[in-house]
């Protein structure tokens, strides 16, 4: 169990963490979701005991990350946001090295990493620096897991990884969860939020919401529409200029807009046609975590 109380961290005048408090339960996948610069890495570094907070406390299975850092370092597996293995050592040498410094062997905990490691085992003689992004992350996860940690701290493990490998990576996290490992994971990909048991939406050093992904989506109380036209960039400003449109954001090939309840789809269709758009497609949609994040960011 991770207990965080009033954690505060500043760099000069910049506040990275603003009196954060939260709890992560045993055997839970807890996702910290937020854009770059929201304070995820600072939080994870403090929890991994490699950074000191200005004030506040964090406990992991009863051990303080500040005072008991020596013990903490035996029970956590930490994977920093940057690829942090030795590029000039081979896959196997890296794994062996990390196994040894955690006073264990590859054989002892092979069952834990088996599923992941098997995928990169054909390349075990290859230098880590020559691996693809996805394989690097799988190796890094193997190295972070080799000593069977009680808590796994993964800072943006899927950033820069292709969609297939990302999916595989999350499947592995689920399997690790079933081994009883508590997993704290951060990501900038909102679509990964649904894969966590609970998520915290983070912005500018604050958690703006902490709940299960479903509860966060359920708490969304706006009317959400998806709009597609033949000229997406022009329609973005036209939609924003409509008096009854509250917010409008580009979401891939659609615009997600929130509107006042009294604006009907046909009214909006009419409005866009008048603006000169010939192909207009509008439909009501269910919100995603990203919509919730946007809504929370805009109406604090």
């Amino acid at each position, binding site marked *: 169990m991770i207990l965080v109380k009033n954690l505060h961290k500043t760099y000069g005048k910049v506040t990275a963490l603003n009196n954060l408090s939260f709890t992560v339960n045993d055997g839970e996948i807890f996702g910290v979701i937020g854009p770059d610069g929201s304070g995820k890495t600072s939080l994870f*570094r403090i929890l*991994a*005991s*490699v*950074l*000191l907070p200005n004030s506040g406390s964090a406990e992991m299975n009863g051990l303080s990350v500040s005072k008991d*850092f*020596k013990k903490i*370092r*035996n029970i*956590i597996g*930490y*994977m*920093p946001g*940057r*690829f*942090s*293995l*030795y*590029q*000039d*050592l081979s896959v196997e*040498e890296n794994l*062996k*090295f*990390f196994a*040894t*410094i*955690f*006073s264990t062997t590859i054989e002892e905990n092979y069952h834990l990493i088996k599923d992941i490691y098997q995928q990169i085992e054909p390349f075990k003689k290859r230098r880590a620096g020559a691996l693809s992004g996805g394989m690097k992350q799988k190796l890094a996860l193997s*190295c972070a897991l080799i000593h069977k940690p009680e808590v796994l701290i993964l800072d943006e493990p899927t950033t820069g990884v292709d969609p297939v490998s990302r999916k595989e990576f999350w499947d592995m996290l689920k399997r690790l969860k079933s081994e009883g490992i508590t997993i704290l994971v951060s990501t900038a990909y909102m679509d990964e939020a649904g894969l966590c048991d609970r998520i915290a939406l983070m912005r500018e050093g604050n958690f703006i919401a902490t709940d299960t992904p479903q509860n966060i989506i359920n708490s969304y109380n706006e009317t959400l529409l998806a709009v597609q036209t033949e000229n997406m960039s022009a329609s973005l400003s036209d939609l924003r200029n409509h008096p009854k449109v509250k917010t409008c954001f580009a979401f891939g090939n659609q615009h997600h807009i929130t509107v006042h309840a009294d604006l009907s789809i046909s009214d909006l269709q009419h409005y866009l046609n008048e603006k000169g758009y010939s192909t207009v497609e509008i439909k009501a949609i269910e919100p995603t975590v990203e919509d919730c994040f946007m809504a929370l960011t805009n109406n604090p």
Partner: protein
Amino acid sequence: MKQFLAFVKKEFYHILRDGRTMLILLGMPIVQILLFGFAINMEVQNIRTVIFDPAQDAITTQISRRIAANRYFNMNKYVSSFDEINRLLQQGEIDVAIVYEQNFNENLIHTKKAQLQIITDASNPNTGTIVANYVMAIIGDYQKEMLRTNSIPYQINIENKLLYNPEMRSAYTFVPGIMGLVLLVICAIMTSISIVREKERGTMEVLLASPLKSWTVLISKTIPYLTLSFVNLITILLLSVYILNVPIQGSLVLLIFISVLFIFLALSLGLLISTAVDTQVVAVLISGIGLMMPALILSGMIFPIENMPLPLQWASSIVPARWYISAVKKVMIEGLGVAHIIKELSVIIGMIIFLIGASIANIKNRLA
């Protein structure tokens, strides 16, 4: 212990797999010894010489022969006019011209005086002076012999005795210097770079979050460089004894003992630098400017410390290489025993204690 060994093994992998760096580390002492030994030489050799001898008598011929026979001089030819000398000097074809006066022998017998002119190319003043001194030395020798056979009652002998380095061989000065420089470069610079590289590449973050102790990391970093510098030490000693003919006059054991002490000193300097900086570039700059330059300029390797202005002499006393070079000179060149290097030894040991203390105080268990 297992962790420590695994770490040392990893360090060796880093070094062995970086072929270029490896080549530089092992090749550097060889190149430096050969460079200082043969190219950047304070001795002047192969002096291109011409002689203008209008007298052509017994004595001038004897003197000319002596000069021609000297190993520093390359006798080019006899010339017959000053114009030719001027032309050759201007074209840079000769380094020195020796001119006898007419009736050299007769003047010497009758007036006890004869004139000889040495014209050197002093566009490089150092070389010019040295060449002139060589010629005067040869003539002085000849004169002494003549005086002996002629049994003249009064003779003044000015004897310039050069102890320990009778031939004024510069190898005697720079071999200890290069030993100091190479050990400093490899131990201090490479150790600090290799630690700072872990910080820069982010691997330090993972190491910090592991149960590995900080000092284990630091100490294991030094082992491979300790080995490398020992190899280099042996290379330098072999090269200087067998290629440069600089013998080890004193005790080899004592020499190696001082060197190992100095290696520890350099390693602890490297550790201190690595605890203080965060990027490889800064580490190189600090060790390059802060360690190499003083080791080159203030250690007495190139410029004698006694000739420095007082403030620089004071500054030189905090340059570790100075004490090492001085100790090596005493043991290796002068053949002195341990009693004569007590001062050097105590300064070096004092510096080690200070630096290790400072590094330990500086070691961090966390980032930043």
